[in-house]
């Protein structure tokens, strides 16, 4: 009997699957739910950022760019299409200014123009 059951284990598995509900997620027909810890788009707390450039130094993918003229005049930019979504900038920032949100980065038709200005400070 045991042997018989084992012989037809795949058949019983598909019959079981037929009676179970499909395991497919609702997206895109239902709204998208992403887990809390997912590393998505990069956001910044402009009050905390001082433009020190630690995040840019440690970024492995060249996804962050800092144009710095002086202490008070800088522009921090993020290229979602070059980002490795590794979270290193979050670790490197001493003030906890930069972090990943759990929002999905949307697909685009032109990656080179996809630049998010995180913080722009004019002197």
């Amino acid at each position, binding site marked *: 009997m045991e042997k018989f059951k084992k012989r037809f284990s*795949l058949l019983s598995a598909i019959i079981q*699957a037929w009676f179970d509900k*499909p395991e497919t997620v609702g997206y895109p027909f239902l709204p998208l739910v992403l887990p809390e810890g997912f590393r998505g788009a990069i956001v910044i707390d402009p009050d905390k950022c001082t433009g020190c450039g630690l995040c840019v130094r440690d970024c492995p993918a060249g996804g962050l760019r800092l144009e710095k003229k002086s202490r008070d005049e800088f522009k921090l930019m993020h290229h979602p299409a070059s980002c490795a979504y590794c979270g290193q900038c979050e670790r490197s920032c001493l003030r906890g200014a930069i972090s990943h949100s759990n929002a999905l980065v949307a697909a685009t038709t032109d990656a080179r123009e996809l630049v998010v200005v995180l913080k722009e400070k004019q002197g």
Partner: protein
Amino acid sequence: MIEGLFFLLFFPGLAFQVVCGLAFEWLDRKLLARFQRRVGPPWYQPLADLIKLFSKEDLLPKGANHLIAALLPLVSFSAVLTAGLYIPVAGFTPFSFEGDLIVILFLMSVPTLAYYLAGIVSLGVYSVLGGGRSLLQFFSYEVPLLIALSGPAILGQSWSVAGIMEAQTVQGPFVIFQPLGFILAIVGLIGKLKRDPLDIPSAKSEVVGGSLTEITGTKLGLWHLLMKVQAVVGIFLVINLYLGWLKYLPAHLSILVFVIECLIMVVILSVTSAVFARLRIDQLAGLGWKILVPLALLQIGFVILMGV
């Protein structure tokens, strides 16, 4: 004249068979998806696929013969449609004649040969490999299938499908006397349709797309369509030969029973494709000649003894 044209173009001809073919594909894919815990495609999916293929560019490798490559799916499509005309649908037989079973079986073999030729003329490496494999497979399943299908003919003492159905109304469905033959017919049908587990000629992981690897656009669409229609015709044939006892039921009841029988056949085909692994070509030849042929002969012997 007008009636004949209606039979040809709408029922049980072109339109009916195409619709049945698309419905069969959707049912099959949906069932398979559910066996795999998925949702599966929406109902219009086969239609969208077909129209999309018709809208695509028609490419062939350099040096391939465009005319023959275009004729092959057309010829085999018409062969399958013609075969479908002679098969009674829910007991409705406009074109039946004595000996139509032989014509049907002959016409049903045309796509396999055309499939082989399509591989040769489109010049791709995988096409040639797939074409050769389709012939090897043909020799393995065709003989047991033919022997098995001659069982109902002998028992019904007629070589016409309608005649065999008539005999069944007297003697009862032939599946009771020939369960072996019924199973062999299904195995042969799976081989004919190149479905998993006998999808050796078109196995993705081995020969990419088989004979159709290099074929695009409208031709590919026609090939896909004719294979679905072939599946429907094959299912109708097997049902009529083994479960065709409904000729003298009231009309609407006989249609209902026929539809239910068709659905059962689709489920059988889906389940077999879900639970069996693809065979190697040597394993298939061994199965065909060492197991299926002796079984078919045994069945025939039993049928002849019954007739005596």
